[in-house]
């Protein structure tokens, strides 16, 4: 009997689940830390903890629908607390959640190098999305993006993401 390793079977086997407290508290904690940490040291505003968490849940669950919903929810909470129009981060992180989950079901996302590359790449994608939303959708002409700064942000998010993902791996319910 020939064993077939289809896309669906791989996803079903490796799809990971999280408990409800982790699902709720980790994103909320990430948004809160994002609000509080820059009070301690202003330079920490370059980090985007909600993005890191969005990407983690997306690539771990490997369900585009859940990834989209998680990204949208985290982004909306971030928008509410940052005083920006509600939906800017919601849209950007919904796309990140969708793309992360879609990619997570095709490649090995348990590898640290792969995770680092994903974090770096998606951080840049998020910067592009935010630029498009602010500049094109909202028509804010004063909004500029300093791409060198965005590269630095992507690097900082990557450096943060690797240890955070290793910690969050302990919260997984393996089946």
């Amino acid at each position, binding site marked *: 009997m020939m064993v077939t390793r289809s896309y669906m079977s791989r996803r079903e086997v490796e799809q990971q689940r999280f408990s409800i407290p982790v699902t709720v508290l980790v994103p909320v904690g990430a948004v809160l830390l994002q609000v509080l940490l820059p*009070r301690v040291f202003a330079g920490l505003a370059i980090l985007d903890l909600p993005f890191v968490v969005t990407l983690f849940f997306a690539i771990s669950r490997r369900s585009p629908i859940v990834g989209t919903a998680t990204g*949208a929810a985290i982004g909306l909470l971030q928008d509410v607390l940052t*005083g920006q*129009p509600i939906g800017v981060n919601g849209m950007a992180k*919904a796309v990140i959640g969708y793309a992360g989950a879609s990619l997570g079901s095709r490649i090995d996302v348990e590898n640290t190098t792969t995770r680092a590359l994903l974090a770096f790449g998606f951080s840049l994608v998020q910067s592009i999305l935010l630029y498009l939303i602010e500049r094109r959708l909202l028509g804010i002409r004063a909004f500029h993006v300093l791409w060198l*700064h965005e590269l630095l942000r992507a690097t900082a998010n990557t450096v943060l993401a690797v240890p955070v993902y290793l910690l969050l791996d302990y919260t997984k319910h393996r089946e």
Partner: protein
Amino acid sequence: MDFLTQYKNALFLIGVLLSLAIALAVQVRSPLDEAQPDGPSVRLIRMWAMTAVTPLERVTHAIGSGTGRAWSAYIDLRHVRQQNKDLQQQLARVRIEEAAIAEDALQGRRLQAMLGFRESYVGSTVAAQVIGASGSEQSHILTIDKGTRDGLRPDMAVITQNGVVGKLRDVFPTTAEVLEINDQSSGAGVLLASTRIRAILRGTLTGRVQIGNLTADSRIQPGEQVLTSGGDQVYPRGLQVGVVESIAPDPDHQPYTAIRVKTAVDLDRVEEVLVITGTQPDLTAGAQQDLTAAAAQHAADLSAERLPGIYDEQTPGATGASGATAATGAATPPAVNATPALPHPLPVVHPDRFSSGSTAPASDLKPGGANSAPSGQQPQPPQPGAAQ
């Protein structure tokens, strides 16, 4: 049906994005009303979120500030003596400066009255503590622990003792959001202190503050003070904003220059703020009293300088007497039978043979002897009765 099943993920994403785009379109009105940045429903959502988050922020702030206070109390104790000494010296210097400033202030008030100029002064303020920040580089917003229950309203100016911080944006019952002057959407009417040029100050994407509506002017130099002009009806006139840091041509908006301003307040480290809840056309009663007292002190100092003194401050005995008088009371009359001190010549810097006291008394002189004073010896002023 197969289509929906096959593309359910993409359709879900499109649905979410479409919903959020519609939500954004409802929120963002054109032109944007700066006084009311959010509609009622959005404001309600923000209020709920703030209400949920504020207790956590308060707890975190309390723990952080408590630890910080304990540590700084320990550190401060080690330097308190030197600090006290420095402060006393600073106080003495400030008292002297205050008298001169009071005179200038009175003169300014007189000139303003002549011109019929009405200036608004800070009438009442509410002190508040910063308990949170936006945590994003795209927006520079602080959260303070006072709200509508404390009399705060949107667009009230927020300052510290060093200068302007920003203005209130959304005000909730127990908290409020402060839009800092370095936020992209922030703006303020300012005045360059020495050149008296009016301008508009704006925040930038990088969290800096700059003036961008002025053409090149050689009179504007780095280091010039930037004050609020009062023209925006938000910030009272004369508040410190910062100093001009650099001047460069603005490549995006020629022929204007980009004048970068270093803010007087370190906006990344604001802990306590004052919200200006009211302005008034005149100084407060307390400030008036201070001004009057300082002016009286200045007048007394001027009179004291112009009147001739009978005691020579350089004579130790005279200084002691003066000091004793000051210690026992300024109203003590001088002794009636006291012998008035003779005026003494001032000590010379480079003595020579013509200087007073360089020659020995006549009784000591000998014909053909060395009569000049020994070299290097400081000549002494003639003492009363010494020549007798």
